[in-house]
């Protein structure tokens, strides 16, 4: 195992990149994710989470059990947009609706 060993297969992030993020001060999986994209791919950190936590622990001396895992979110697996959408109409407002005219309330909540 050397510095070029891949930790995150989805985004092709290696040990060196993880260690650079730690050198910048990052101490949690999520904080490393935002700097390197590690864990942002299709497996959603299922493969790399514990490898990265181990590297943090090795480099900082922090016990493994104190290193927070990332937050789990829907969808847990890759899902078609059409399947998520179902058949109802959307109620999410459009950005254009934000443009208000003089006298109107700005940032009106429509949801």
């Amino acid at each position, binding site marked *: 195992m050397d510095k070029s060993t891949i930790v995150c297969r989805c985004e092709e992030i290696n040990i060196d990149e993880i260690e650079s993020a730690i050198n910048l001060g990052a101490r949690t999986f999520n904080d490393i994710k935002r700097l390197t994209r590690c864990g942002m791919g299709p497996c959603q950190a299922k493969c790399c989470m514990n490898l990265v936590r181990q590297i943090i622990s090795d480099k900082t001396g922090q016990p493994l059990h104190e290193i927070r895992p990332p937050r789990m979110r829907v969808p847990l697996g890759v*899902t078609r947009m059409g399947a998520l959408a179902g058949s109802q109409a959307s109620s999410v407002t459009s950005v254009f609706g934000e443009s208000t005219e003089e006298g109107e309330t700005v940032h009106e909540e429509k949801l």
Partner: protein
Amino acid sequence: MKKSYDVIVVGSGVVGSSITYHLSEERNKEILSIDKDFPLSGTSGSTQAWVWVHNKTPAWYGELNMYSAELYSFLERKIGDVEYKRTGGIAPFFSEADREKALRLAEKQAEVGIKVEVLSRDEVLEKEPSLSRSIAGATYSKIDGNVNPFRLIELYIRAARKNGAKFSFYNPVMDITKENGLFKVTTQDGDYFSNQLVLAGGPWSKSLGKLLGIDVPIKQVRGQIVVTEPLRPFLSHTIGGVRQADNGEVLIGYSKEEVGYDLRSTLDIVQDTARMAIDFVPALEKVNVVRCFSGIRVMPEDGFPILGGIPGIEKGYIAAMHSGITLSPLVGTLMTELLSGGETSIDLERYSLNRFDSLQSIG
């Protein structure tokens, strides 16, 4: 770590790190930036990161955003490639009845120099052939674009460090008091002292304000974003609600919920956002969603930035706003002018915390 500084900036998000960077450029101040977590762990790291101008109203607020957007190419020459792209921005509308309103917007924005075009359906589809035919038209401006927020904040911090600024992360501020004319900032890692203090706590501005006995009237508004698998480049503009990143992922979302500081993704909004995606770009029905995230917007009660000195607290300053990504280059510049005792390039009176009637000392 050194205990005394000229300036302490509380918060290392896009606003705080921009202020720290711009202050450090003059290299005549010792600066410490303190963050309760790590940069990007809050609002600045969970955003679509539009650099968005054209339908910010009233026109004087649009103008502020325009000046900041104009600073981005200059900023990149100083701190490095933040993947800023001036893609042009399209805000579609779905009803012909909105055209009148769009034309009035264009007229108002023209008064301050923001060029907004009102497009017909065919003109929209010519610019973005993948958009839905159910769109009636759109407002469009060349000035809008987007940036990579992860690169932006990382490079603000790297550049500030190069100029000698210090950072302390995972270090919550627990109290702020004034002793012998200096601010005493009590953190988990000990006490730090400074001559000037800037609160740049984003969604936590209210609780930071309380430490100084002031009310900071902001709301926390959650937005949820759905992210697709990487797709071939097919959306070339920043579209209100949808944008395609450099790596091919499409980010979709424009939901708003007032649920406090709750960063969860919820299936109802994720489903609603998937419907919105298909309403805007029908071909997205067939693509895969890889992940979702949510972020907490900082929303001052009247929607406009809170910027400037804190009334009644000498040498205390605050910067709290929505659209921090768009506004950060300008806000960093203006706050540096203010803290250096000079006149600001733009009059900040209208952005003062003073404007809120509800402002009262709660200390």
